[in-house]
């Protein structure tokens, strides 16, 4: 069907003749049409990404060196250099928010990952009814964090609340009652508990897939060698799940750093800023106080932090793989 008297023209269409067989079978015009179609099909995604991801990203860097304020737009916006960054780094509330966010991540990530693995091992036991349990454990992850926060608010009432009653009964009246969300030292641990409750099913499903991809013969061999269940878990299951651990820890860490919804609904960052987070900090300065320049600088710092964590974790993984 291809006309041999019309070899692919090296200039316009056939320039990149490394293209696969798909395009070489068509005529020059249909090839040109194909390239136009490809460009058209790429355009919506690229345009939207450029406008709503890349542009705001560049804007946040640009605005972060100005004193731009959304309220008095007519006032002159001035270049202020790194002044915003300097005042953020001098702001005790920023460091408090950063520490709270880090604290949340440092506890949530290992606890949630370990519980997720435990649930996955339970569900993977092959017992009848396991799919029902799997379904139940995953259920809270489909609820929005706002709904989860509201439900938990009902349980966390103090001094007379459901959780206090349970803790009191289980401890024989020794413990409690606690002011779960009103006590400076308890508010963040409480936020952690309900966040783990909501999110653990997600990681469980990922671990479950990891468990199911482990070669059953490994266990068979270990059993013949007389390894106990715990030894099998320690020496087969855990090492075989390396890639799964990496994904779960990475994804949970980044999610943890975005902590906002549950705090906004339940504590508004209180008491005494003990649950204020980085996202809440930039939300307050940019949205509540309209200090766009200042908040942009905080956004850039937040982005750099997330980027840094991702890169460090990836680097650690790479080293691990080389061994």
């Amino acid at each position, binding site marked *: 069907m291809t006309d041999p008297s019309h070899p692919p023209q090296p200039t316009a269409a056939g320039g*990149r003749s*490394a293209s696969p067989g*798909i*395009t070489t*079978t068509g005529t020059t015009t*249909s090839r040109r049409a194909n*390239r136009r179609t*490809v460009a058209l*099909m*790429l355009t*919506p*995604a690229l345009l*939207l*990404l450029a406008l*709503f*991801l*890349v*542009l705001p990203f560049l*804007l*946040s860097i640009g*605005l972060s060196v100005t004193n731009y304020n959304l309220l008095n737009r007519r006032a002159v916006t001035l270049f202020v250099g790194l002044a915003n960054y300097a005042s953020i780094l001098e702001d005790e509330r920023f460091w408090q928010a950063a520490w709270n966010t880090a604290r949340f991540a440092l506890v949530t990530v290992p606890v949630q990952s370990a519980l997720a693995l435990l649930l996955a091992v*339970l569900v993977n*036991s092959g*017992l009848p009814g*396991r799919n029902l*349990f799997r379904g*139940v*454990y995953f*259920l*809270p*992850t*489909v*609820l*929005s*964090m*706002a709904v989860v*926060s*509201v*439900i*938990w*608010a*009902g*349980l966390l*009432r103090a001094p*007379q609340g*459901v959780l206090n009653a349970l803790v009191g009964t289980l401890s024989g009246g020794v413990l409690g009652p606690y002011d779960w969300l009103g006590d400076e030292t308890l508010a963040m641990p409480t936020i952690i508990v309900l966040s783990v*409750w909501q999110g653990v*099913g*997600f990681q469980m499903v*990922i671990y479950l897939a990891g468990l199911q991809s482990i070669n059953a013969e490994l266990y068979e061999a270990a059993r013949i060698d007389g390894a106990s*269940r715990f030894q099998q878990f320690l020496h087969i299951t855990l090492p075989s799940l390396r890639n799964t651990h990496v994904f779960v820890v990475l*994804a949970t860490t*980044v999610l943890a750093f975005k902590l906002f*919804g549950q705090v906004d609904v339940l504590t508004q960052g209180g008491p005494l800023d003990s649950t204020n987070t980085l996202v809440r900090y930039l*939300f307050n300065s*940019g*949205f509540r106080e309209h200090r766009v320049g200042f908040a942009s600088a905080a956004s*850039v710092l937040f*982005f750099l932090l*997330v980027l840094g964590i991702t890169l460090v974790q990836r680097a650690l993984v790479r080293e691990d793989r080389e061994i």
Partner: protein
Amino acid sequence: MAPVSSRTLRLTSPATLLTYAAMLAAASIMLGPLVVMLVTSLKPDTLQIVQDLGGVAAFIPGPVSLENYKRVLADQQMPFLRFLVNTLVVVVSIVGLGIIVNSMAAYCLARRRFRGRDLLLAVIIALIIVPVESLAVPLLMMVNHLGWMDSYHVQIVPFIAHPFSIFLFYQYFAKLPKDLDEAAAMDGASVWRIYWSIIMPLSAPVIATVAILQGLEFWSAYLWPLMVTRGVEFRPLSVGVAQFFGQEPRQWGEVMAFANMASLPVIIAYLTFQRWFIQSVVGSAVKG
């Protein structure tokens, strides 16, 4: 026969009983808060509810009544149905348009050759880690200048193109056998035809994965709609439920009825398509 007998043995072994006990304990922790929500929402007496929420009576159903639900639905200040429609419009638009836009781009990246393709792919993968939270303030300024505040499109347009969805589509398309489009191209099928009539019909699993992940993400979206909606007209459920909860004096029966109704659509979707939900989570983790 051997496996059966060993199974029946295992069912009563101490290890099995222990596993069941652990699974049941975990299940009651996961379901407990939801039981309290449901039970409380069905109790008619406000005073009784407050008293019951002070102890284990919160788990025990009383006389069943839909009074709280009626009151929530009749509330003009906090129109539940309006919030629900708003959420549905936003989520369905993002997911529907997102599937088309992201799969088109991924198809070109995975199955066509053009200059700069590898660079483009690398950039899109790098964009996955940019947290929306770090863009919220400059994005707010942009949409404010555009006059987009308080609308549906301000909640939809910025989130249609989704680097992670493009990546998931890319990964799936790249694994489909190449001779599919080659054969079609021989028959004179256009690029668009190959994408629309050959590739997409084979891609139900990845479409479901992307739809569920992106759908859940924006069903729960909270920060952005909190910033860009000022009245109830375009406000989604997630912000609506938080505001309903914030009203004083707090009517727990109504709050729980509201929360329950706000969860029902997604719980029903989950129970109906459970396998797909679980599959999509697994799909999200199988990275490069």
